[in-house]
C-alpha cells in the first residue's frame, strides 16, 4: 500500500536544497531593496531644472574599470563553484582568492570614488543626488564587503578538513548565488546611475 502511494506522489515537487531556496528568497527580497533604492534615485534625478549635474564628479573610466573587475570576479566565482563540485580543493582555493582579491579592488575603487566625490564637495547632505547616490552605492558596497568576508571565512574553513564535495558544494553554491546577484545589481546601478548621465537626450 505505502509503496504505491510513494510511487504516485513523492516528497515536495520542487526538489531544491533548503539553503539554496532560502538564498533565492533572500535575493528576491534583496531585489526589492535595491529596486526601492534605485527608483528613489531615478525619481529624484531630474526633479528640478536646477538639479545637480553628476557629470561634475563622475569619472567613467574608473567606474568602468571597477565594473569590469566585479564582472571578472563573478567568472572566478563560477570557476570556484565548479571546482568544489568536482571536489578539487586546490582549484577552489585559487579561484576563491581571486574573487576575494577582485572584490577588494572593487571596494578600494569605491572608497577612492567616495573620497574623491567628498573632496569635490558632494556629501550625503549636499543635495538629493548625494543622499540617493551614497546610500544606494553604499548599500551595494556593504553587500560586496559582506560577500568578501563570507568568502574569506569559506577560504579558511577549507583548511579545517571539514569540507567535502557533497556537503560543502551547496554552501559554496549559495555563496556564489549571492556573489553573482551582487554583481548583477552593480550592472544595473552602473547603467541606471552612471551611464544614463552620458545619454545626451535625457538631460
Amino acid at each position, binding site marked *: *500500500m*505505502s509503496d504505491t*502511494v510513494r510511487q504516485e506522489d513523492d*516528497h*515536495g515537487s520542487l526538489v531544491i536544497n533548503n539553503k539554496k531556496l532560502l538564498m533565492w528568497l533572500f535575493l528576491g527580497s534583496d531585489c526589492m531593496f535595491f529596486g526601492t533604492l534605485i527608483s528613489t534615485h531615478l525619481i529624484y534625478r531630474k526633479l528640478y531644472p536646477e538639479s545637480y549635474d553628476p557629470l561634475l564628479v563622475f569619472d567613467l573610466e574608473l567606474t568602468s574599470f571597477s565594473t569590469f573587475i566585479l564582472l571578472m570576479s563573478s567568472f572566478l566565482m563560477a570557476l570556484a563553484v565548479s571546482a568544489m563540485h568536482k571536489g578539487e580543493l586546490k582549484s577552489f582555493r585559487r579561484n576563491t582568492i581571486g574573487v576575494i582579491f577582485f572584490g577588494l579592488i572593487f571596494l578600494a575603487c569605491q572608497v577612492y570614488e567616495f573620497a574623491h566625490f567628498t573632496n569635490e564637495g558632494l556629501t*550625503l547632505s549636499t*543635495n538629493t543626488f548625494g*543622499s540617493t547616490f*551614497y*546610500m544606494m552605492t553604499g548599500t551595494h558596497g556593504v553587500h560586496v564587503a559582506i560577500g568578501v568576508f563570507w568568502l574569506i571565512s569559506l577560504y579558511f574553513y577549507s583548511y579545517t578538513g571539514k569540507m567535502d564535495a557533497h556537503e560543502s558544494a551547496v554552501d559554496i553554491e549559495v555563496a556564489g548565488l549571492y556573489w553573482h546577484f551582487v554583481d548583477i545589481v552593480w550592472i544595473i546601478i552602473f547603467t541606471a546611475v552612471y551611464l544614463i548621465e552620458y545619454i545626451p537626450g535625457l538631460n
Partner: protein
Amino acid sequence: MSQTETEILTPSTIPSTETHVLKPERSQLGFMRPDHSRSVIMDWLTTVDHKKIGIMYGAIALFFLLVGGVEALIIRTQLAIPENDLISAQRYNQLFTMHGTTMIFLAIMPLNAAFFNFLVPLQIGARDVAFPRINSFSLWAFVAGAIVINFGWVLQALQVMGLFEAGGPTAGMTDLAPAMGWFGYAPLTGTNFTGAGTDFWIMGLQILGIASLSAAMNFVVTIVNMRAPGMKMMRMPVFTWMTLVVSLLIVFAFPAITIALGQLMFDRCFGTNFFVVAGGGQPILWQHLFWIFGHPEVYILVLPAMGIISEILPVFSKKPLFGYSIVVFSGAVIGFLGFAVWSHHMFTTGLGKVATAAFSLLTMAIAVPTGVKIFNWVGTLWGGRVRFSAPMIFSLGFVWMFMMGGFSGIMHSSAPADAQQQDSYFVIAHFHYVAIGGIFLAVVAGIYFWLPKMIGKMWKGKLSTWVAIFSTVGLNVTFFPMHFLGLLGMPRRTHTYLEGFGWETYNLVCTIGAYILAFGILLLVIDIIRCFRNGEPAGNDPWDARTLEWATTSPPQVYNFAKTPIIPARDALWEDKYGPENRKITHEDDHGHGIHMPSQSWMPFIAALGFIPVGLGMSLMQAGIPYMGYVAIFGLLVLGFGIALWAIEGPGGYHMHPEVDAA
C-alpha cells in the same frame, strides 16, 4: 506499531520520551550544547522547537494586545465628552501612534506568527521548520524590536518626573515616545518636528522587519520543502496555504519599508535629504514607499485570519471546505493584487486622473476574490450539520463582521467618496471592523480551536459564549457610530472637540462600547487562564477535526510524529477516520534510524540580543546622551559575533527513538 495500522499516535501506544536520558553533546566550538537541560528558563531561551516558539510568540502577543487595548481605552476615555482634559494633546498623539503600532506589529502579526509556528509543521507532517535556529532568531529579534519601540515610554516617564531632558539633535523636544501616527508621514518625522520618539519607532520597526523577513523566508522553505510524502500542494490545509501566501508577501513587501525607514534614519541621524523639503526631498515619496509596504501588510494581517476560518468552518459543519481550490486561488490573487492598490491610501494627494482611476479599479477588483471567499464559506455552511461550539461562534461572527468592514472598504475604493471620507472617523470605523471584527474574532476562534492541541487541555464551561457576546456587541457599539461621526465630519487624530457639532452622543456611545469590548477581552483572558489551570485532558482530536495536526498527541511530542505519515488525500485525518480503505494514512518506515532532532542553541538568542543596544544606542544618541554611538556599534558586534559563532558551532542534532523506548 506496524505499517498497516491506521491510528497514528496515542499516548498509550507511545509514552513520552524521557529526553533527560540523553546527554548533551559538544558543539564544534567546544561548548556543551544547551540540550536536555533541566533548567526550564534555559530550555525556553535556547529552544528551537517550533511549538515552544509558537507558544512564546502567542504569549507575548497577547500581552501586547492588552497593552494596545489599554492605550485604546485611554484614547476613548479622553474622547468621551467634549473638551476633556484627561490627557494632553501630545500624550494623545503618542497613545494613538503606539496603539496602532502595537496592535499591528506587536499583537496581530506575532499572533499570526504563533499560529504559523505551532501549526504549519504539524499540518504538513514535518518534524520542525526548515531552519529551527533561524526560527528562534526571529522570535528573539521580535522581542528586541518590541523592547526598543516601547522604550520611549520609559524615557518619557523620566522626562515627566523631571529626570531627563533631551539634548543633541532633538534638543528641546518633549515627545520621547513616538507621536507622529503609525504611518509616520514625512515631514512630521523630521528632527525639527518630532523628538527621539520617532527614532525609537524607526529602530524598533526596522528590527521587527528583520524578524518578520527571516521568519517568512523560513516558512516558505518549510512549506515548499518539508511536506510529508503525499502532501501535495493542493492537499495542504488552507491555513498552510495562506501562511505561504503571507510569507511571500512579507518577503516582497517589507523591503520597501526597510529602505524607507533607512532613508528616514539617515535623514534624522546623518543629514540626508530624502524627505527634507529644504534639501530638495519629497515627503510624498515616503507615502508611496510606506503604502507599497503598507497595503500588502493589510493582507499580511488578514489572510491568516481567512486561513483560520477556512479550517474551522468545515470541522463544525461536518463538510469539506466548499471549493477548496478556488479559496486557495482567491487567497493567492488577493496577495498578488495587494501590491497594486497602495495608492488608494493617497487619493487626496493629487495623483492625477489616470493613476486615480487605475487604483480605484484595482481596489474594486480586489473585492472580487474576497467576495468569492465569503460565498465559499457560506457554501461550506450550507446543508452542513452545524455545531455551535466556541470556535464556530467566533468564526460565524468573523464572516459577518468582516463583511461589514469589506462593505465600507468598497465605499473607499471610489475616489470621490474617499476624498470625503479621508482622515475622518469613517476610516477608523472601516479598518476597525476589519481588524477587530475580522482579524481579532478569527484569532480568538483560532485560540478556542487550537489551544486544546497546544496545551493538551480542554475548555471548561461556556464562558466563551459571553466572550463572544461582549466582544461583538462591544465592537459594534464602539465602531458602528463612528461611520456617522465620520460623515458628520469628525476628523481622526483629534485629541478633543468642541460642543455643538452633534458629535457628543456618538462619542459617548463609542466610549461605552469600548469598555464593553474590553470586558469581553477580560473574560477571554480569564477563560484562557481557567483552561490552563482546570482544563480536562483534551485527547488527540476533541473537535472531530479533519487535518493532520489533530492526528498527533495533545500537546504534541517534541518530535511531532513518531513516524512520518504518508498522506493519501486532502483532509487527511478525516479520510483516515471515515474514508475508504485506500485513503487511510500510512507511515514511512524509518529503518531504525529514529527521528533526527535539531540541537538547541544560545547563538540565535545572543545574536538577536545585539539588536537592543543597536536600537537603543541609535535612538538615545538622537536624544543627546553621550557615547550612545559606541553602544550601537557594540550591539552590531554582538550581533556579528552571535552569527559567526552560530555558523561555527554547526547545526548538531541527535536521534530519538520513541518506539524503541516504548518497547
